[in-house]
């Protein structure tokens, strides 16, 4: 998964639910189908809930990775308008 190049990256560190997902959703809405969104976050619950909600909205979660003690990176491919 390391070779995936995101089309857009957002940093939502410091945000908690539901604003983590709200921000991620607003970001992906502005993108084209097939493009990849990279989300950097530090709220543990959102590392589970964002992938779940993105899948429920019809997008493809490509990767969820804990990159250090506090942060996660999620890669989501926009699969529908």
């Amino acid at each position, binding site marked *: 998964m390391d070779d995936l190049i995101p089309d857009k990256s957002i940093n939502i560190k410091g945000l908690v639910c*539901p*604003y983590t*997902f*709200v*921000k991620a*959703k*607003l970001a992906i*809405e502005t993108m084209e189908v097939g493009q990849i969104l990279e989300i950097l976050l530090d709220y543990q619950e959102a590392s589970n809930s964002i992938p779940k*909600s993105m899948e*429920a*909205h*019809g997008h493809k979660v490509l990767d969820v990775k804990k990159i250090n003690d506090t942060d996660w990176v999620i890669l989501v491919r926009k699969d529908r308008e």
Partner: protein
Amino acid sequence: MDFTDDQIKRYSRHIILPEVGGKGQAKIAKAKVFMIGAGGLGCPVGYYLAAAGVGTIAIVDDDVVELSNLQRQIAHSTKTLGMPKVESAKATFETLNPDVNVIPLKLRISKDNILDLIKDYDIVVDGSDNFPTRYLVNDACVLTGKPLVSGAILRFEGQVTTIIPGKGHCYRCLFEEMPPPGLVPSCQEAGVLGVLPGIIGGLQAMEVIKLIIGKGEPLSGKLLIYDALKTTFRTVKVPKNPDCPVCGMNPTITELADYDAQYCSI
């Protein structure tokens, strides 16, 4: 549309809905809704449309707030007694949500002003309390092709229907002519349980939002009837009448008239 951080918070429960999202919320912000009446129905409809962030809400009503209104007209209060209802409602709605522009119109609509008043609006909401207005609003919306969300209440029963001119039925397909005044309950016979307009107005507001975001199925070609005493909702189909005098194949009503039959306003 770029939302401020406050707007993202305010509308977050809309934005996370798949059917709304940021795009739907932007449509709501751009929408212009024209409301007939700032009474029992207009208060909850306007309250929820303002909360939802509808960008422009015009309200027409020529009454002032009276004590007997306050058992059901929730945008007004003891503090606004004597104030024009449209001003009282504007203050309430803009306090709830400063994003919303409320345009108060303290006047009576008539055949001479309605077309000009509604022409810049996307959707019309009828919360009027009398048949002449109801028919005038229907005919104006059919003639101009404006979607109309109509509500009515009496005692413990309410009705809601959504009129999409050219697609579904209109009010005259349902009730071709106004009932004779004697058949309409007089003031003494009428009454309304104060919660009822909250329910019917809530349904109207939901219909308006669905039309704005283009999701779901509006009550076009259908009439919803709520019986509060039995706690039942019935939806009946209302076919478009090909012989309807205003929206039929050969309409006889091609311009507006004022229907000034004497009704007791409830």
